[in-house]
């Protein structure tokens, strides 16, 4: 879906202060907690059974235990505060499948997911912007048409299918990359381990990033075309600056701003895509855990992951906002130093 167009009108309005953003982010996380709370109780059936998981095969003792810690026989208000209280102390519930606190499970798998998401962001924003900028240099050229087609086609490709096709092509028929997982066996030493993870990371990150790369290249091209028509570009040329400097220093610094904004807004979609990609590539992250837990009816874990992913989105969103404010000085100062 081409959400780039309506967002062009939204992009200019990113002037809420950092304080407001922070407050809003906290509010968001709390809203997810509230959402979780009500979802469990809205589901058909006994909430205790839902929380126990294991396809309802829990024994009476476990159920009673659950009823007690969640206060399920108490009034709704009390339940709610109990729930918030548990969240604040970091108690996200227990997985009855693993017999472990959900928080521990999540902690183990946060890093791989973050690694995947952030690398795919780098790929999609980085390559997308470069493609868009180069295409803008020659609006009627080959690269420009390529960007147009790519941006439409790239967004129509199902991410998980793309991952599988890349697997087939580059891990099976031409086995350059490993088939799945994050690390190989018996790899010793820091540098070899990093290289090993990088090899495992490449195809998943590419699959996840490609659809967004398509979009960003289109946005970058449009933005760059607009920037290239600006007066200050004319000034730069009049100063005698090299054309490459005009494009990549003067132009790019301005053109990249809408791309960064858009990237921040699409994080939820990236996380969703990560769930699919982790499944395809057997990547040991939160997404894979979520899918597995769903089939095991391990609801506490699933809800915990929903909460954790919302936190991840909010945090990366804040970081993106910081980056954007650094990049555009007009947002930094509020009238003089």
């Amino acid at each position, binding site marked *: 879906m081409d959400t780039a167009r309506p967002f062009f009108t939204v992009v200019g309005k990113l002037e809420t202060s950092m304080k407001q953003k922070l407050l809003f982010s906290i509010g968001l996380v709390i809203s997810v907690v509230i959402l979780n709370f009500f979802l469990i109780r809205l589901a058909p059936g006994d909430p205790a059974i839902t929380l126990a998981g294991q396809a309802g095969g829990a024994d009476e003792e476990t159920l009673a235990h659950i009823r007690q810690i969640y206060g399920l026989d108490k009034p709704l208000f009390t339940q709610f505060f109990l729930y918030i209280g548990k969240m604040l102390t970091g108690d996200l519930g227990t997985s009855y499948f693993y017999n472990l606190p959900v928080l521990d499970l999540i902690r183990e798998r946060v890093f791989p997911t973050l690694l995947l998401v952030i690398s795919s962001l780098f790929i999609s924003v980085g390559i997308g912007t470069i493609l868009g900028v180069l295409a803008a240099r020659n609006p009627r050229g080959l690269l420009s048409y390529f960007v147009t087609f790519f941006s439409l086609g790239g967004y129509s490709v199902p991410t998980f299918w793309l991952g599988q096709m890349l697997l087939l092509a580059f891990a099976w028929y031409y086995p350059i990359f490993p088939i799945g997982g994050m690390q190989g066996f018996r790899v010793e030493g820091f540098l070899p381990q990093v290289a090993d993870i990088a090899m495992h990371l490449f195809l998943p990150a590419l699959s996840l990033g490609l659809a967004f790369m398509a979009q960003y290249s289109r946005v970058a091209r449009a933005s760059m075309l607009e920037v290239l028509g600006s007066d200050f570009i*004319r*000034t*730069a040329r009049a*100063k*005698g600056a090299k054309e490459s400097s005009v494009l990549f220093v003067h132009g790019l610094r*301005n053109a990249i701003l809408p791309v960064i904004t858009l990237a921040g807004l699409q994080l939820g979609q990236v996380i969703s895509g990560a769930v699919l990609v982790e499944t395809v590539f057997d990547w040991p992250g939160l997404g894979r855990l979520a899918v597995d837990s769903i089939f095991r009816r391990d609801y506490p874990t699933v809800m915990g992951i929903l909460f954790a992913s919302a936190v991840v989105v909010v945090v990366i969103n804040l970081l993106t906002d910081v980056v954007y404010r650094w990049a*555009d*000085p007009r947002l930094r100062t509020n009238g*003089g130093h």
Partner: protein
Amino acid sequence: MSDPILQVDQLCVDFKTKSGPVRVLNDVSFSLSAGETLGIVGESGCGKSMTSLAVMGLVPKPNGKIVSGSIYYEGEDLVQAPEKRMRQIRGGDISMIFQEPMTSLNPVFSVGKQIGEAVKLHEDVSRKEINERVIDVLTRVGIPDPVKRANDFPHQMSGGMRQRVMIAMALVCKPRIIIADEPTTALDVTVQAQILELMLKLQEEENTAVILISHDMGVISQVSDRVLVMYAGRTIEEGDCVSVVQESAHPYTKGLISCIPDIEHTKNMAFSDRLPVIEGIVPNLITIGDGCAFAPRCTLADDACRNWKTGPVQVAGTHLASCRKIDGSMA
């Protein structure tokens, strides 16, 4: 008067449009001497900005092209010069100040950095010295507290200050020629006067030649040593300021001069009197043809004028005009 440092000869620039190529500059010729101020005046669209862009080698690429003619700068023909040489000249030998100070500076870089870039591009000096030069030139253009201001961003400055920054950027490499394209049009009237004064002062200090482009005849007549009048892409009158303004030869120039509001005259006007105007509108460059471009609007024109391929006619001394009806001439 010294030898001209800039000599433009029969410059023709074409622009590609949907209806075919349009000649936006037609046999433009003029000269500029060291340290002198040349004012180029004319209506919007007459080609004054395009002339300056052509000198700088900045004619908009895909559609515009210098078709014929030459631009001699200190003996070198800029039309033939390779891009690398033009880059050396831009900002270093010949620099330009544009009309809209609000948008002519890059919003994401500090003012000091942008001025410093101009230095870095043309001279091989240390970072420390670049900073010193930046502060120095900011002081000269009259920006208070230059050390602090150098780190400011354009959006933190007023329009007048930004234009001073633009001037600073144009000056910092001590160019021989500065082209100022409507530098004060976008500014408040009080600021206008300040900026003009500043430019004159700096010009005197450095003996820089200035080409001042404006549609405001009043400004031009106050500030220029010599004046060039343009119309529909052609140069139609050239000469020293006093001659052109007080003894205008071309009917268009006469019309322009008479349009300058004169408070004495207006005080004595009756309510139903009208201010002087030049009848008609600027011609469409696509359909203009070869004859005198002003003929359709000229009160003196006859059929021969419409077919006359224009050329400069000497009025007196260095005062030239492209009209065949000038007293004593028979073109």
